[in-house]
């Protein structure tokens, strides 16, 4: 078998794509990795922000996997292009707001484009770590051909971990890859992958419970839908979707939402947004930084101040001084009576 063939692999940072690459490397295929950043990726963001994650190693799993495999990894910013995938998924949503199948089609399509843009490097085909039946929508036997067709990859898309359950692709038919040395994994049982990982000597790998996307998360998705509903528009910017990952989100009025830090790490993170958003925090007691997303009227400042005071150390005090700063204006200080726990209606929590 010739070793002149090259593949580009979609690397998520999880075990499956790691195994898929190693399976081909074992056959002498040269592989490089590609990873797409949509803005919704579950990576180091929350670890970097929150104090409670300080013990977790702050590593990008895709980079870490690439280094373990000894391959180059190209990380591509697709934040803008991904908006259309999220807002207009042709195949609908999977769990919560996850445009599961459209997302996979989009990523393989981007890989096809990347291969064309880098044709001088001679990539022959694309691989993924997909396993039939592992995901409820994008990784089904009937949807896998849809991904291959609609992405434009056609039969140059090889899934080494479940290839034996699918029709032979061009790399197999042409003998670039030995089909007999590929796998027939299927279903949600992870034991075959764990066994293969052991065989390859991989003993450290990421196993994110909900996949690698915040859009599969119910809480995150409900915050996103709330944002769209409040703005009467589904437009979003990167800052919007990053802020959905941070703090308590409380909407006391339809026109504005408060994002209240849950620890010092989040307070520090929100401080970085004070030039863009109205912000408030207690100056008489220790407490969280909060920012206002939306349009708050001056008459609602006492309400917002009493809410932020409820989450600080002055929550049992009669009065708390709160500094409120509207961007491009001097800060003002008001005395607020901290709201009692039971006074914050559950329906305000987004």
């Amino acid at each position, binding site marked *: 078998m010739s070793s002149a063939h090259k593949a580009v692999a979609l690397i998520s940072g999880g075990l499956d794509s790691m195994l898929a690459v190693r399976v081909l490397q074992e056959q002498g295929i040269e592989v490089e990795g590609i*990873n797409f*950043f949509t803005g919704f*990726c579950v*990576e*180091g*963001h929350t*670890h*970097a*922000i929150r104090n409670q994650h300080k013990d977790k*190693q*702050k*590593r*990008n799993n*895709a*980079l*870490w996997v*690439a*280094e373990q495999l*000894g*391959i*180059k*990894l*190209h*990380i*591509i*910013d697709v934040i803008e292009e991904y908006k259309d995938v999220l807002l207009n998924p042709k195949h609908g949503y999977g769990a919560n707001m996850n445009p599961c199948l459209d997302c996979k089609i989009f990523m393989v399509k981007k890989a096809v484009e990347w291969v064309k843009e880098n044709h001088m490097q001679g990539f022959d085909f694309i691989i993924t770590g997909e396993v039939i039946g592992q995901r409820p929508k994008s990784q089904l036997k009937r949807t896998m051909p849809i991904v291959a067709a609609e992405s434009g990859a056609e039969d140059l898309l090889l899934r080494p971990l479940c290839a034996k359950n699918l029709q032979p692709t061009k790399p197999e038919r042409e003998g670039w890859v030995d089909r007999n040395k590929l796998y027939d994994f299927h279903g949600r049982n992870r034991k075959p992958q764990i066994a293969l990982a052991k065989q390859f000597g991989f003993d450290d790998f990421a196993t994110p419970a909900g996949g690698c996307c915040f859009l599969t998360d119910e809480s995150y998705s409900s915050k996103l839908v709330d944002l769209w509903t409040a703005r009467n528009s589904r437009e979003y910017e990167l800052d919007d979707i*990053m802020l959905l990952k941070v703090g308590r989100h409380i909407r006391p009025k339809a026109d504005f939402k408060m994002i209240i830090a849950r620890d010092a790490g989040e307070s*520090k993170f929100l401080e*970085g947004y004070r030039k863009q958003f109205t912000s408030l925090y207690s100056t008489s007691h220790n407490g969280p930084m909060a920012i206002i997303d939306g349009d708050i009227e001056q008459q609602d400042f006492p309400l917002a101040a009493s809410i932020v005071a409820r989450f600080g150390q002055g929550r049992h005090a009669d009065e708390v001084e709160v500094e409120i700063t509207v961007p491009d204006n001097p800060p003002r200080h008001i005395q607020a009576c901290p709201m009692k726990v039971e006074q914050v209606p559950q329906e305000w929590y987004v």
Partner: protein
Amino acid sequence: MKQLELDARRLLCPLPVIKTQNKVAELSSGDILKVTCTDPGALSDIPAWARIHGHKIVESIEEDDEIIITVCVGA
């Protein structure tokens, strides 16, 4: 030999890596890029990215709340 600076402050992982990657693509072997970040994840991610692409980390400094990573572009 060029010496450039890149401001990646307030960007969270993996954006500092993407910015570094894209800037390095415009540079030549031996050029120096000094990247300023605030995400502590950059301390592991930029060196990891540099290692797999054959670039060298000349220096990593943590100063107040900022991280300054100096990359020497490889061949």
